[in-house]
């Protein structure tokens, strides 16, 4: 500090400000570049394409058709059916995964399993980190009616055969199970983290009150699990609305159109050069996810549970 002096001049201040901030801009530049080029640009392109005629969509001068693609999409009975299927599946999957994850986490954090719990946690989280394609391919063959392990096991136990992915009546359950196998460990682990932070004194109080299990669960445990429930429901909602890989690998949308979820249907359309309608569907799904995510976020902020 050689110039210990009067207040620094404006130009010095400005230069210093710029110097500091130039560093920040430099730090942020690669991140910004990737976000823009690999994220925002394709999204913009996708939205733009949704307003063009498919046949000209990729040419230098596409023909703009206004909302024609959106009108076509909403008038397409296959899409409407697909949208309902997606919604129904999402609700089923979110409820099933969260409920099972909650009870399994409660079970794992109970005193009964004190020392061994970590290894069980390790097992249920294993599918979360392994490649989904590989996992689903294995499930696909395990469901095979001809030599799959699932029916072989059922037969060995003297139970009726499971239709698996070959029947409309069972395909939803079959992929729910496969997806739960893959995802549920994540929700379990989040719940477990929340359980570790529970206030045990409230438990004691409830115990002294002689409150029944159910009463204790709904009055004492659940309210304290709100952070985990919120996080898990946001993740699960987004996760299952986008259900894709399991369909590509196991069912290809079938049997019939029983698992033709929106993301898969849009992808098929794109593959068949129906760029306009495919991107219109993508934009619709994006809007739904955005609205849901913001609603949940807003709800979350308002409660301020932290």
């Amino acid at each position: 500090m050689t110039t210990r002096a009067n207040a620094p001049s404006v130009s010095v201040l400005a230069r210093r400000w710029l110097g500091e901030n130039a560093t920040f801009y430099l730090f942020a530049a690669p991140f910004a570049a990737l976000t823009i080029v690999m994220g925002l640009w394709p999204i913009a392109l996708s939205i733009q394409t949704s307003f063009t005629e498919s046949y000209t969509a990729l040419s230098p001068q596409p023909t703009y058709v206004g909302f024609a693609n959106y009108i076509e999409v909403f008038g397409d009975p296959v899409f409407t059916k697909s949208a309902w299927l997606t919604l129904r599946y999402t609700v089923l999957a979110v409820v099933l995964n969260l409920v099972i994850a909650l009870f399994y986490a409660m079970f794992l954090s109970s005193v009964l399993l004190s020392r061994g719990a970590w290894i069980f946690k390790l097992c249920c989280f294993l599918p979360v980190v392994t490649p989904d394609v590989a996992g689903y391919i294995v499930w696909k063959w395990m469901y095979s009616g001809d030599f799959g392990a699932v029916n072989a096991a059922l037969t060995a136990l003297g139970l009726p055969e499971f239709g698996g992915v070959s029947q409309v009546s069972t395909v939803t359950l079959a992929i729910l199970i496969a997806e739960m196998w893959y995802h549920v460990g994540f929700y379990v682990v989040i719940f477990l983290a929340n359980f570790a932070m529970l206030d045990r004194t409230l438990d004691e109080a409830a115990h002294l009150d002689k409150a029944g299990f159910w009463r204790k669960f709904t009055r004492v445990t659940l309210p304290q699990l709100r952070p985990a429930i919120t996080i898990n429901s946001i993740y699960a909602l987004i996760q299952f609305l986008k259900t894709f890989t399991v369909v590509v690998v196991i069912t290809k949308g079938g049997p019939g159109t029983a698992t033709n979820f929106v993301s898969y249907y849009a992808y098929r359309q794109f593959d068949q050069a129906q760029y306009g309608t495919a991107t219109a569907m993508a934009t619709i799904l994006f809007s739904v996810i955005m609205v849901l995510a913001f609603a949940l976020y807003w709800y979350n902020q308002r409660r301020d549970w932290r």
Partner: protein
Amino acid sequence: MSRDTALRIAAYGLAIAVSAFFVFPYLWMISASFKSTEAILTEPLQLIPDSLSFKAYRDIAVMSGVGLGTYVWNSLWITLASTVITLLSTGFGAYALYRAPKLPGFGLLRVGFLLVIMYPYMLLVMPVYLVMFKLGLLGTVTGIILFLSVGPIQFFLFEQFFRSIPREVIEAARMDRASETRILFRVVAPMARPVVVTVTLITILLNWAQWFPILVISRSTDTYTLPVALLSLNSELGVNFQGIMALATLTTLPVILVYLATQKYVIEGMISGAVKG
């Protein structure tokens, strides 16, 4: 036997049964890859085959005219390169946005990033084809690596870590008139080792599993990674079930090993990434 012990045994029994549900598919996969066709058809539940057959692994030595080694190399190289880029870009990016959130443009960047991670990933990949084309990166490994470098939760992991640094530490350094670069490298970076390890591990696991962007950006099987090769192993000309299981095993095993060796980091990283996001 006391009631307590009985309960304990029952609880362990249940936990083992549930864990078997999670682990069985892997065992079945590994076992099937070493079985003969006949053994699979007659004894689908038998996990330890009577005799080991390595035929499936020989069968997948060349797939679609491309050697297994190429797929393995692509998987390794693409995963590692994109992990390094993700690490650097989100690390520095999150730091800049944390330190100077009010700088012009940074607010927009944050919103933009949120939009990107909310966009349905598989639908984002389709227009990425056009982007790659416009950039001249279609069919190149560079294109694949750059696209995979946009990671969803890594940014939040870093941001959360930076927020946990006591304000006074950075303020003190600023008082000493240390430059921003110096603050980052001398003050913040030494504390960041755990978060860097976590982000690295999670990114490796996520990118190793990627398939859809790689499938879309590729223009030949030369740039396929193991999961994409696995998905393409089915063709109209026939199917090799054991080969599929062998390739699935090769695709999964490295990840399982990394996970088992580093489970604490991985699980905790995932939790804090999620809690923040």
